[in-house]
């Protein structure tokens, strides 16, 4: 019983990953989208920190 259950669980995961034979298309579309969205948000956050630090540095230089 346990074995069958375990087997069917694996099957459904395999089914899910194989996307009815369209795995390469579906997962590459999702992969590329995640990379692009991830870059968008991290670059935006990095820019904000960078600008802040640059202005800070400029102000400190002016004080000296």
């Amino acid at each position: 019983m346990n074995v069958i259950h375990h087997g069917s669980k694996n099957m459904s995961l395999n089914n899910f990953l194989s996307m009815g034979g369209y795995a390469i298309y579906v997962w590459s579309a999702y992969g590329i989208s995640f990379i692009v969205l991830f870059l968008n948000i991290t670059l935006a956050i990095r820019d904000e920190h960078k600008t802040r630090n640059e202005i800070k540095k400029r102000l400190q230089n002016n004080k000296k």
Partner: protein
Amino acid sequence: MYKWIHQFGSPKYFYDISIPLSKWVAIICAICFVSGLYGGLVLAPADYQQGDSFRIIYLHVPAAWMSLFVYLIIAFSGAISLIWHIKITDIIARASAPIGASFTFLALITGAIWGKPMWGTYWVWDARLTSELILLLLYLGYIALQSAFDDKRIAARAGAILALIGVINIPIIHYSVEWWSTLHQGPTISKFDKPSIHLTMLIPLLLMVIAFKTFYITTLLIRARSEILEYECNSSWVKKYVTK
């Protein structure tokens, strides 16, 4: 009302409210993303014609909608800053451009990946695909213009004019599937009287649309904040903020 607009136009006010706002919007975005992906990839049944390949719709349609929406925001902000010389609309337009370009890129690339198994080709030079590619070029032109001028005000004005001229492309993209015969399928959701999509497929799509929209707002606010700091680097509140 006028006072509110005036307040919102003040960079410091915008900066202050953008910090809690971006956090809350990001939370909504994360919730919609996770539930939309689960609904779209796991719960929704495979399409009776397209099988599981239709699941690319959950990226393609939100990205394509946002590519048009963000462009309209840029053009609209550009018009406002041309007429009234408001700083914050310059900043919104400039901060939106890279995000809009990314959405356009995603709409094109996910469409190409989807087109291969369904149409047998990644690309055709038909009206919908070509006009969307022109949109990407408009975005890239806008971004290039922004970095071509040292004076940000001139860059903003030049960008606004480019964006306004390019607006002509937006109705062309939208109606291209009706005006010209094309491989691209017709609208999926805009037929409110008789939607051509089942509810278990539709709800994840709407969640993904909200996720993409809130993603845009979050990224826009973060980008706008660093633009504001740069614009206002000589004002006392920025100095106080940066050194604290």
